[in-house]
């Protein structure tokens, strides 16, 4: 039996990690669009309204636009990513307490060490379960195009 997993096309993985690096010294954040089975098709980098190395808040206006874009392309927002600048790639008590949707994938990008560390979790109530992250080579999107790398 295959366990829970998140499939990230390589260009979106690069976009996500790049957005996190460019946000230093603050935490950076964004949303992931795709299908509920955990196949990511779009990455939506967003502003961190908290402007902090300890906290993030996804810009609500960008969230609305990402949600509409995902829906218009037959997808949904299926998760959120954010960076931890000086701690592990593991959800903090703040992350767990504020996890908005038990069906979402929660991706953490730790920038504490020399190389970024990317991990993904499911959070249901207080329970945190790690899932496998598979970075896939550039591949065709079911619509016939390629995995999208731009927010809008």
């Amino acid at each position: 039996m295959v366990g829970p997993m998140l499939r990230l096309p390589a260009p979106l993985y690069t976009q996500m990690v790049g957005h996190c690096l460019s946000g230093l010294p603050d935490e950076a954040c964004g949303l992931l669009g795709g299908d509920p089975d955990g196949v990511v098709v779009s990455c939506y980098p967003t502003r961190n309204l908290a402007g902090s190395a300890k906290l993030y808040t996804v810009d609500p206006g960008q969230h609305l636009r990402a949600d509409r874009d995902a829906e218009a392309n037959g997808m949904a927002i299926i998760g959120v990513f954010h960076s931890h600048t000086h701690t592990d790639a593991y959800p903090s008590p703040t992350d767990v307490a504020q996890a908005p949707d038990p069906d979402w994938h929660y991706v953490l990008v730790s920038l504490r060490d020399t190389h970024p560390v990317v991990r993904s979790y499911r959070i249901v109530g207080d329970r945190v379960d790690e899932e496998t992250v598979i970075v896939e080579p550039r591949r065709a999107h079911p619509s016939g195009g390629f995995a999208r790398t731009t927010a809008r």
Partner: protein
Amino acid sequence: MAVDVRLPTVLRPHAGGLSTVSANGATIGEVLNDLVTRYPGMAGQVLTEDGALHRFVNVYVDDDDVRYLEQLDTKVADGATVSILPAVAGGCGR
């Protein structure tokens, strides 16, 4: 007046799985109160016990976040679309 209310996935189970429902009201406060009257399971997730907008949701009239307008007193025009999304926040916290 009736408006369409777009629901986030986390609230849809309280509305029989629907992604968009109808609700009545001339202001956001009236629309949300009508919504939770129709779908009581949403009550504690959209409005607080005091009737304020819950801090874990963002509510929009068309393209505008009501927190930057008149919050629950924001007027809702006939045919407008109200969207509810979860407020997404967190961080290492230390």
